[in-house]
């Protein structure tokens, strides 16, 4: 069992509190991603779990036991750093063997384990090389190998793919996921890239300004973001958000320009709300049945799909259209809304449920 728990973790730098009491439960063998923009405290939280940083309050538990007083080496964790942090003066073999040597593993066993890890990561041909002689992707794999050679209880990843080019990043994403399945160890993965989080994690923890905003499965976060922050952070291109207000009955959404949309649902009446619609839930529609009229400002062909940016009375709007869409800049077009997939947030940015009083 290697579940990881944080109880009311606080972190202060001087008088500035950067983590305001983080409560988190990570199941055994789970792959959890911590996401959030720079400075949200996700790396700090990971480093506190690793024991590299001291927390100012609260408790960290691994396998049900508190590890707050243990040094990193006694927590039975492994960590992959963004900068790889390989030992520049040691070759690949020595880099992989170091942690085993430090734990007084017999020589024969070290050799077996290092070669097994190298095999799993396609590094067998590079065991004699110095880190400086390796490519970025190979260094990344050595960093992973150093973590998995010891089979620790918990893997910690601190933005491990940020220094790779786009193609390698996609490859390594699958690789890490595969390793996680093979090793069956609890993994905590910090990233600022919501695509990485969405594609890799069993569950995502969204952090913002030192607080957990939402925890859930990737599609839960996508379908029901708890706040406008999560709504705009998860999903690419990001969700269209419009500020306006609801009428007394709560069935129509008005913006300051006077235009309004029928929502097809009842919300409690609020003076000031934010309406969210994902680009996926919009459709270009030239017929009279269209909900909004607007003028096409930009058309981006990405190959598999087309992103159409439309100026509407509600504000600029992004629509995800099929590939080879005939939309042309300057055209007047109608946009149809999937009313089942509207998101409504109140004045403080919290999600509102439909059908409520």
């Amino acid at each position: 069992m290697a579940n990881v728990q944080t109880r009311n973790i606080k972190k202060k730098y001087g008088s500035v509190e950067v983590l305001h009491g983080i409560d988190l439960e990570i199941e055994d063998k789970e792959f959890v991603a911590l996401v959030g923009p720079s400075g949200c405290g996700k790396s700090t939280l990971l480093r506190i779990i690793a024991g590299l940083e001291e927390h100012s309050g609260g408790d960290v538990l691994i396998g049900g036991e508190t590890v707050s007083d243990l040094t990193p080496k006694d927590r039975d964790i492994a960590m992959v750093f963004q900068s790889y942090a390989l030992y520049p003066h040691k070759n690949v073999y020595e880099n992989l063997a170091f942690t085993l040597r430090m734990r007084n593993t017999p020589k024969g066993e070290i050799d077996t384990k290092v070669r097994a890890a190298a095999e799993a990561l396609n590094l067998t041909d590079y065991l004699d090389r110095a880190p400086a002689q390796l490519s970025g992707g190979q260094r990344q794999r050595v960093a992973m190998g150093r973590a998995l050679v010891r089979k620790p209880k918990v893997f910690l990843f601190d933005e491990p793919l940020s220094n790779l080019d786009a193609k390698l990043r996609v490859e390594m994403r699958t690789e890490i996921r595969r390793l996680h399945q093979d090793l069956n160890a609890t993994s905590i993965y910090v990233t600022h890239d919501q695509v990485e989080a969405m594609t890799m994690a069993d569950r995502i923890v969204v952090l913002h300004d030192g607080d957990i905003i939402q925890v859930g499965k990737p599609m839960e976060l996508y379908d029901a973001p708890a706040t406008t922050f999560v709504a705009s952070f998860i999903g690419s291109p990001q969700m269209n958000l419009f500020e306006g207000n609801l009428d007394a009955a709560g069935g129509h959404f008005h913006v300051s320009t006077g235009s309004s949309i029928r929502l097809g649902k009842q919300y409690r009446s609020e003076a000031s709300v934010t309406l969210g619609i994902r680009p996926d839930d919009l459709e270009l529609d030239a017929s009279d049945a269209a909900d909004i009229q607007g003028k096409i400002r930009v058309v981006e062909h990405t190959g598999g799909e087309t992103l159409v940016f439309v100026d509407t009375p509600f504000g600029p709007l992004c629509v995800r259209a099929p590939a080879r869409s005939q939309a042309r800049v300057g055209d007047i077009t109608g946009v149809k809304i999937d009313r089942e997939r509207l998101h409504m947030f109140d004045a403080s940015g919290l999600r509102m449920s439909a059908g409520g009083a």
Partner: protein
Amino acid sequence: MFSIRRHPVFFVVLFAPALLLVGGLMLFPIVNGIRLSFTNASPLRAETRFVGVENFIYLFEDPRFWEVLGNTVYICGLSTIFCTILGLVVALLLDSGIRFVGFFRAAVFQVWVVPWIVIAILWGWLFNDEWGIVNQFLRSTGIIEGQMAWMFEPKLAPWVVIFAYSWRAVPFVMVIALAALQGIPKEVNEAAEIDGAGYLNRLRHITLPLLQNILLVAALLEAVRFLQEVTIPLVLTQGGPIGATNVLSLFTYKAAFTEWDFGLASAAGTVWLLFVIVFAGVYNRFLLRKSA
């Protein structure tokens, strides 16, 4: 465009100042020094005569000269080792996350701006057998009774010089080691920590191997500096007692400016030059390359 073949004069004109400086200030003295070592040049002599290798034969037949070479290796070698270790220790302390690092770094570096002559005089006071603070301290703590004649014991005097040398050189090694230490990415040490290495293991397997080359270079620079140094033995001990602190630099200085035997001094200087060249070469070949 401006190739040296097409515009030879232009290039010579441009290079001339640099060539004159290097030639006049470095090459000429070296060549002239070597030339003088084969003569009996002296300001006390009306005529200078070529004497072949007589000066060298005289030097190597003189047991005193061998003693001087021994002293030089002993004093400069130990000073180099001590100042490197001490400088490293101070750098490690300053890098360990203590507060007021800037203050301590500046404080340690103060030593670097103290002129050698001041150190020589200060050391003379510190180690004075009657009223020096070192003896005062040793007496008051009961380690010795009476007084230690630091400057008059052939076994003790070299240590006073070694201590002065090492102390003066610590800031240089400290600054270089500290810069190198701060150049080691924080994550490398953190990775080692997670890999299970405690402080001493990290020092042994990570920090020291990464600092090895830079420390060896700093040590080499210090060794050469100690080999050149004349002030401390000259002012503090005048090479005594019984020649115990007579090092090659002082020997050469005295031969030239006390005995006015330029030929002999140049011969000693030439030996010294060869010694430094061989030492640096061996050092470069066997210590630096291996760790690169």
